[in-house]
């Protein structure tokens, strides 16, 4: 069984002890080009989400819009160690996952603006995007519904014997849904190759995890089913990578599911319409200033001797991608009215 941290009794009614007990697993520092690529991918999500927030404010994006800002290290770290063909499924806070899976920023942004050029032709929106080509299976709007779906994708991997693993991302709010445990049971019973990635950003909408979750740490929620779990500093992309390698190896070798609890933090509200009054500005600021995943990696890159100008250039490139995506998302036409009645059923060939 993989190493895991000593448990901490979480006391209810206290503010979350963000990261205090989170284990940092660090192997040797990867090559600089790997670090640079992680930096690029996290920065792309950050800038993309900032722009999405701005477009929301301008009325260009409607409905719900859940931003991933602050949590970038989780998906970027894990996807950086995944294999081609491993499948991904997540909840509605999904823009970062799509970008990390290699989906085009322009197609994602155009879906946010509800345009023809979006991944779902403007018919899905922020919470409902898919790319079979990139093995991204959504984008699910119902809290925890993606968890059995992820196990089903893992079932298909095992059934086909393709050696691939599913990563099913869920939040600390979703861990209290019954279907999560129905899934843990089946996944363990049938040794399904699935990693349940609990992105513990400390709040399920406005309810802190300590007010919502009884018992042990979330990484231990699979204990009764014999599923190993590990708590990870989800603000440290290298710790995430190292943990991902352990979990992937476990699943790929046929030992069944694995739980990774990523201790992370979202800087923005639950959705755009959340004033986030349930936490203090100081709490948010301290996470931002002391634990920001992008700043931490930037410091490391500079320590490793990467030229600051090179990083600035990277920053510029990312901004260009986001600007290009925005231009596309605002210039792509609205879906044609005939699209109202398409894609309801697959017509028999």
């Amino acid at each position, binding site marked *: 069984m993989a190493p895991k941290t000593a448990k901490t009794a979480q006391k209810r009614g206290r503010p979350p002890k963000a990261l205090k007990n989170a284990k940092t697993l660090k192997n040797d520092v990867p090559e600089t080009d790997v670090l640079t690529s992680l930096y690029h991918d996290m920065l792309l999500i950050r800038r993309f989400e900032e722009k999405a927030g701005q477009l929301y404010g301008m009325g260009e994006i409607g409905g719900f819009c859940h931003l991933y800002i602050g949590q970038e290290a989780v998906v970027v770290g894990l996807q950086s160690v995944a294999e081609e063909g491993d499948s991904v499924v997540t909840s509605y806070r999904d823009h970062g996952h799509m970008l990390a899976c290699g989906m085009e920023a322009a197609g994602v942004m155009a879906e946010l603006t509800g345009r023809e050029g979006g991944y779902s032709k403007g018919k899905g929106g922020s919470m409902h995007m898919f790319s079979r080509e990139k093995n991204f299976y959504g*984008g699910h709007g119902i809290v925890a519904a993606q968890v059995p779906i992820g196990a089903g994708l893992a079932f*298909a991997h095992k059934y086909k014997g393709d050696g691939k693993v599913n990563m099913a991302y869920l939040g600390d709010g979703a861990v209290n849904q019954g279907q999560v445990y129905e899934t843990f049971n089946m996944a363990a019973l049938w040794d399904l190759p699935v990693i349940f990635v609990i992105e513990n950003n400390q709040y399920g909408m406005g309810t802190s995890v300590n007010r919502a979750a009884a018992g042990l740490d979330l990484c231990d929620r699979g204990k009764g089913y014999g599923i190993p779990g590990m708590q990870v500093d989800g603000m440290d992309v290298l710790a995430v990578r190292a943990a991902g390698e352990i979990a992937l190896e476990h699943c790929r070798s046929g030992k069944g599911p694995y739980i990774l609890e990523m201790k992370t933090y979202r800087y923005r509200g639950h959705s755009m*319409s959340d004033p986030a009054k349930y936490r203090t500005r100081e709490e948010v600021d301290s996470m931002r200033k002391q634990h920001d995943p992008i700043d931490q990696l930037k410091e490391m890159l500079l320590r490793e001797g990467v030229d600051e100008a090179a990083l600035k250039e990277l920053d510029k490139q990312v901004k260009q991608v986001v*600007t290009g995506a*925005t231009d596309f998302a605002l210039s792509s036409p609205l879906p044609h009215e005939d699209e109202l009645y398409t894609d309801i*059923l697959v017509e028999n060939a």
Partner: protein
Amino acid sequence: MAIEIKMPALSPTMTEGRLSRWLVKQGDEIKSGDLLAEIETDKATMEVEAVDEGVVTEILVAEGTDNIAVGSVIARLSGDDDTENNTADAAADNSDASSEAPAALQVAEAAPQAPAVPAAPVVAQIAEELDWDGPTKTMTVREALRDAMAEEMRDDERVFVMGEEVAEYQGAYKVTQGLLDEFSDKRVIDTPITEHGFAGLGVGAAFGELRPIIEFMTFNFSMQAIDHIINSAAKTLYMSGGQMGCPIVFRGPNGAASRVAAQHSQCYASWYAHCPGLKVVSPWSAADAKGLLKSAIRDPNPVIFLENEVMYGQSFEVPDHDDWTVPIGKAKVVREGTDVTITAFSIMVGRALEAAEALAQQGISAEVIDLRTIRPLDVETITASVRKTNHLVCTEEGFPFAGVSSEIAMQIMEHCFDYLDAPVERVTGKDVPMPYAENLEKLALPQVDEILQAVHKACYREGGR
């Protein structure tokens, strides 16, 4: 280059808000993430963060101003041209649309002139049904369903069956008898009692390009799983813009069994038929059960396959054909007649035929239509019959309110109102939870006598209700 800061929309429904407090002043240098202002919406007061960086050159709206339209310019920044030209460009791109009114408001204003909603397209072409006059075999509905699954599993490695007691126990109602022996536990899988979980898992497997058959021990238990059936299976094709469908069959006994009371006796036909993205099938005869289940397994869409426990043991002639299929979406005239049309599905077909026989003795010629598929509904076959008989009685075991019969009545009004010589009658389950007591249960279920009475009423005969 100046960057405009606009009144942001902070919720899906916000069109205007109050600027309660500025947190910056003219001349301040701001960075991305700095707090700019407090804005009050009808729901909450929220702090607005800066996205762009630069120096505040102008504050255009005073603190305490009410009813500021979303999208109106509230301040300006001097952009740092070196690093911020991209954001400035983006702002410039939008200046056309936003100079007068925000995009969201423009859309709202434009709405009244919007063209009429396009009409729903006509249902797609349905395959022709084979008109079989070859040899047949006598077989129960139970055996027909099992053979349908076995044949499809032999033919397609991707097909597997999963549910409670489907493997080692050989099926709670023995529908999957023998499948474990032939196909092994890789493809015939006993699940824990966990409907929500295995329905969701089945949907994931279908996304992963397998062809799951998910058995519910009874459809009553599908209520535990209905979120996955509707939200995950039925809607994904649409939400993905046609990229990803969900080829899955949810099957099991539906409707009233016998003396099992309210929680185990209910028809789900109208529940599932209500939702776009699903096909709903409910056969009566063994031949249709076999042919339709094979079609359902091959269908690229999620199919709800409603069986009936009472029907499992009934025998019918089934075509002795190595690949007998029946197209989904096609009703069948099971008895021809000229005076009145009776629609039915599943167990009610038998009662409708019994009623037709009794009516014949009374000199009334009833045409009985077995709907077979509830959605897509074969309106064409029903209207063709009503044009001939000019009278319609709809029957079903389900509740009357918003039921399948109500929908058929509406369709007939839309398609051939002028051909009706009398109002449409319906014979349904009573509008009560199913009682346990034998006499009350009988009262709650639609009986042959009630069909007779409804026909008499529709045909203005003595004895009509």
